[in-house]
């Protein structure tokens, strides 16, 4: 049922972008970024998945041509992506806190001193 994963991952990406576009609360914008990020993570993991494969952890002696395992590269990529996602969330939330201090609001419609 890997097809379902692909549909779900693109649904998550679209949902994340939809959240960013429509929600006027800055915290929800940050949540939208995270959702889109999770969508991509799900996509990466699904691409590397082999039905029936084992975890790609072997020592030199165990590895033989008959070994059947999931693709390890996407898993490494996902780890990187998760770390980056956490950084995005941390950084954007800290900016939201500072914005709240300076502007007294976290409504995107009121945080628009720079325009035109």
């Amino acid at each position, binding site marked *: 049922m890997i097809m379902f994963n692909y549909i779900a991952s693109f649904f998550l990406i679209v949902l994340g972008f939809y959240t960013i576009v429509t929600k006027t609360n800055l915290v929800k914008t940050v949540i939208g970024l995270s959702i889109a990020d999770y969508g991509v993570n799900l996509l990466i993991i699904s691409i590397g998945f082999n039905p029936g494969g084992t975890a790609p952890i072997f020592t030199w002696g165990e590895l033989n041509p008959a070994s059947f395992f999931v693709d390890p590269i996407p898993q490494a990529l996902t780890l990187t992506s998760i770390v980056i996602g956490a950084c995005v969330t941390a950084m954007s939330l800290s900016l939201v806190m500072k914005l709240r201090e300076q502007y007294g609001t976290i409504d995107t419609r009121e*945080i628009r001193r*720079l325009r035109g």
Partner: protein
Amino acid sequence: MSTALYQHFPIFAIMALFLGAFLIVLFGNIKPLRHAIALLAVTASLGFLIALVKPVMLNGEIIAYWMGARAPAGGYAIGIALEVDALSLFFGLLIATAVFVSCVYSIQYMRHDDNVSQYYTLFLMLAGGVMGLVLSGDLFNMFIMVEILTFAAVALTAFRNTVNGALEAAFKYLVVGCMGSTCILAGTIMLYAQAHTLNFAQLSAFIPGNMNTATVVAFALLYIGFSTKAFIVPFHPLAADAHGAAPASISVLISGVLTKSGIYGIIRLSYFLFQTMELGTMQFLLVFMGSVSMFVCVTMALAQHDFKRLLAFHSISQIGYVLTAVGLCTAMGISSGLYHAMNHTLFKGLLFLAAGAVLHETGTTDLGKLGGLSKKMPWTTALFLVGAFSISGIPPFNGFASKWMVYQSIYQKAVESGNIGFLFVTIIALVTSVLTLASFVKVSQSVFFGQLPKEYENVKEVPWGMRLAMGLFAVLCIVTGLFPNAVTTYLTQPAAAAVFNVANYINAMMGSGYAESVMGAAAPAAQAVTFVEVGVWQPVSWLLILIIALLAITIVAIAGQYDRVSEKAPAPAPVDGKYDLFFGGEQSVYSQVGGEDLFWGFKHNWRGYFSFMHELHSGIVNDYALWAVVALALTTLYMLIVF
């Protein structure tokens, strides 16, 4: 496998910057040590790249460097690679130069700020990220570098977080920038699913013969992702916000370095990875986006009241020239586009540093408040004028040479392809250049000439370190303008030749014969690219360009005469004495012919357009995110239709 020493230089150039960043975290509290580490890191990085000029640019070598010497086995790239061809090295040199000058400038510019050691850490991380991006030969590595540079740029935008709008600009940049990064990652992984490799050379060999819906969507995702890094329309408001709020030394990097990384990404994608630039539809996409960026941003710049914000819009307008020229898919087009990219880094850097100097001494960049600074800051004024002349394309300076080549290559394309659309692009390019000049007349008038306001009587010239940095850029502007032949022969033409020799790029990395074995008959042959003198000395083409220019002026004049009487709004009530019938005394002595007062007729005639654009750039992050999503949707749709 024996490798010459210089083959290690690309990784050294990247590591010098990152190592500097980590050392500053450790020892940054000691002021002289901090400056020494930062300067040493950027100088080393620049030095390593200059040492590569001879083998790569002159001898035409391509350096393929496998981390840990893990060379490809069985036709599969299993290691992480750096690959430096003339194109990478060209962008690398630009970046290293801009970073070096900006670092020299920072030492005195940032001395009044708090937490300067964090500033240098982020500065070097940003520089290292961009350097890693252009020297990398691995798609996922490019994504990592994109994230590093986006993060560093966002943090540096918000560095002076008490500046009005700094946090806001950083947040908007973070949101849209991360949407772009998400697109890049999604595109990367979709390509991995198709080709099971992340190596750029191997992808370039595999993808063009195996295009399907998934790769097309991946192309659209990657293209939009790199567009957000280049800030081309519709992502230009982010650049304007970020430039206005960031310290001037960072504006230099955002405009001179970040946008270049986006352009580099687009070139790599469309010429190497997908090799689709032979198609007229792809040329149309790039030229169209370039022309729109050119025109929209220059008109936005005309309406600005803030020095740095105005420069930011001009920056994107010039990037439009680069994208247009690159999209032509002719050797001359790419050569001129890269030449203009280089000049853009130089003159835009100079202008931002001059704006920073004004901010440093007066504390404001509001064009309405400044004036007459030429009496107090003669050096800054002179250096600013060099930059202003360069960007407006006045003959002895570099902007003239590259813009002229861009016009010529667009015009040549129009003649070769018989497509009348390219003539309109030439007209847009010429009109944009005129509007650029107009807007720099406005800036020089309202900042450096005219009356000096009372509160700036005690303004002094900036310290020598800042003048030195500006002087470096100014000298480079003049030198590259005086010797266009040397620049094109030694820098841009090897880079343009590299763009057309994809097979060499693939074979250098994967072993000779790889491209031919994977792609079969479709393999791009290694070709010798000739650069014909595109009629620079042919009087006929001068005459035709004159006719085009006259046509453009006529169109503008006719458009200006058309004035709907019914829509004439009553003139706004004058607020300043200078708009009264009679006025004099002390008020008149300190009255300034402001930037707003120039070109008012033009702006009045176009008020519908200007107020529409003003409303459009609403400053709400949701709107900018919506633009990004719409751009992504339209690009995906367009690409699905044309492929």
